[in-house]
């Protein structure tokens, strides 16, 4: 890993479109300002990792498990009608039965 020493107010550039500014330092906490194009996603790593993990977990949830849950329990959807945008986003063709 490349390690650079910087003072408060100094800047690091990455490529020609990203700038990191050391904004401040106080009791073990470094504050960093980031300038980057909108197309570059910037995340706190521990949060990014948690979301990746949650997505992975979600992708392994089986249809039959949720079917079973929703056969025996129900989610109250009386307060919020399916909004128009949600309706437009849905693909309407009815999935064929599994067997």
């Amino acid at each position, binding site marked *: 890993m490349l390690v650079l020493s910087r003072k408060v107010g100094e800047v690091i550039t990455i490529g020609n479109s990203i700038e990191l500014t050391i904004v401040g330092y106080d009791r073990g906490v470094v504050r960093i300002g980031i300038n980057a194009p909108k197309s570059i*996603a910037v*995340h706190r790593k521990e*949060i*990014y990792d*948690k*979301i*990746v*993990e*949650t*997505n*992975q*977990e*979600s*992708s392994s*949830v*089986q*249809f039959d*498990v*949720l*079917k*079973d*849950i*929703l*056969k*025996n*329990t*129900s*989610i*109250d*959807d009386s*307060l*919020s009608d*399916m*909004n128009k*945008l*949600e309706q*437009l*986003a*849905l*693909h*309407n*063709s009815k*999935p*064929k*039965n*599994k*067997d």
Partner: protein
Amino acid sequence: MEQEVKLIKITTPHFGEIEIEDDKLFKFPDGLLGFENLNRFVLINHEETAPLRWLISIDEPNIGFPLINPWLVDIDYKPGRGIDLEKEAAFVVITLGNKEREMTANMKAPIVLEVENKTGRQVVISKDKYSTKQAVINKPKNEGV
């Protein structure tokens, strides 16, 4: 004049073979977090898992994400200015909880579908308030006696 709609056939472990009209596909230029290489999805409703929806990958149809309307989880949900609720439909990703028949929702990283341009993205909300595992409230149905 009506434009011809192409049909794409995919086979999913979720609901077997389905036919998708290609004008119903959502492009995800950046994929989802951890799934950056999946760039085309379709949003499916199946009556047996409603009101959940399924975001199914066209590129890898064995990958699908159960989603829910976040306002069914938290009626005061405020995802912030990064989402235009006039144009974009928001959903959150469902995972299973630790208890039996418990579901949790990732309120921290909603999936946003821009309905007119048919593009989608996963947004990370910086507010600390929202959890990646918020319990979804589901009540036992009355057993018919």
